[in-house]
């Protein structure tokens, strides 16, 4: 998956999916450019914030859409994430990776959306939107039907099992990064992944023969 190709250059740590690990020099350059952009945002530079938005919007929206299974909810979540980001960017001190910090905001907003108890797991149209690649995106090898089934299954899991699965396998965060995002230990992440796998496997049992 490479929804945000340019993010590789700005934030190498969160853009491994589809792009492979960046080389050390490229990673260093990217990290430096990313840090500069964040500093500009912290100084109140609106254009820099716009750039940060452009670089990360697809990833945030995709995560929100996968998590909620609903396009309108994902749009709301994305909007709230960037407003919170604007408000809280001054608190970011670089102690953790920016991307981990951003994911934490995204995950919290998705959980809040779930708590509101509305619109989680949308209709066929929303699931198709998740399943259908947008312009300029790789088509993936999954058929639409399978993608839809996976999306419906993942959206039906409890958030504390759903989030680690998405963060680990769709967004390729390490256990330690997920632990930071979810404010728990790496051991808890492993435990939740196991439980999530078990539930997901039950829901996807019928699709096993279709995907080989």
């Amino acid at each position, binding site marked *: *998956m490479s929804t945000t190709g340019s993010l590789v250059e700005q934030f190498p740590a969160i853009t491994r999916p589809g792009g492979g690990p960046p080389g050390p020099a490229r990673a260093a350059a990217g990290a430096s450019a990313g840090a500069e952009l964040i500093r500009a945002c912290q100084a109140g530079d609106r254009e820099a914030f716009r750039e940060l938005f*452009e670089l990360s919007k697809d990833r945030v929206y995709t995560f929100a859409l996968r998590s909620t299974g609903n396009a309108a909810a994902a*749009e709301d979540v994305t909007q709230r994430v960037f407003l919170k980001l604007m408000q809280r960017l001054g608190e970011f001190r670089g102690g953790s990776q920016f991307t981990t910090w951003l994911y934490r905001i995204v995950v919290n907003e998705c959980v809040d959306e779930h708590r509101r108890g509305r619109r989680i797991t949308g209709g066929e149209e929303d699931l198709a*939107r998740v399943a*259908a690649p947008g312009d300029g*995106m790789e088509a993936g090898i999954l058929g639409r039907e399978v993608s839809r089934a996976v999306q419906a299954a993942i959206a039906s899991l409890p958030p504390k099992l759903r989030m680690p*699965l998405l963060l680990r396998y769709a967004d390729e965060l390490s256990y330690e990064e997920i632990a930071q995002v979810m404010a728990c230990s790496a051991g808890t992440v492993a435990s939740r992944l*196991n439980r999530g*796998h078990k539930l997901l496997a039950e829901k996807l049992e019928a699709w096993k023969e279709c995907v080989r």
Partner: protein
Amino acid sequence: MWNHVEKRLAEYVDGRLPAAEAARVASHLEHCARCRGRCEAVRFNARLLAELPGAAAPSGLWAAIERSLPEPRSSPGFMPMLRWSAIVGMLAVGALGFTRTVPAPEPAMGTCGSPSGKARYRCEVARVSWPARDGRAAVVPAAAANVAACGHCHRN
């Protein structure tokens, strides 16, 4: 020997187990069909999730966000200065209100400035507030007019 390894499968598939533990899990999987099936399911889930296609954010999103953002700063140093000015102003107003609401101290029995220092009086507001250099007590200047009410002080 027959301890199932279900709880280690995510870490096993993700390559996070130490070599010895990974070998133990692998060995168990060779003999246990149940755990082998679970392990296949973990790999299957991981593959499906990794291959989910992404989605592009809706085009009007920035406009919606920008409408909700606060006005941009006119200059980097202006806002903090304005904020501090507001804080100082609020503190000043608060302090003024405090002095107006705190009741005046009760008139206290004091020692007048007589050489003997023994005469005592109750001339209302002639509260002793600080010692004079010669060791005598000094009366609050604003209360001097009331000293006339004190027989001893008035006499002096």
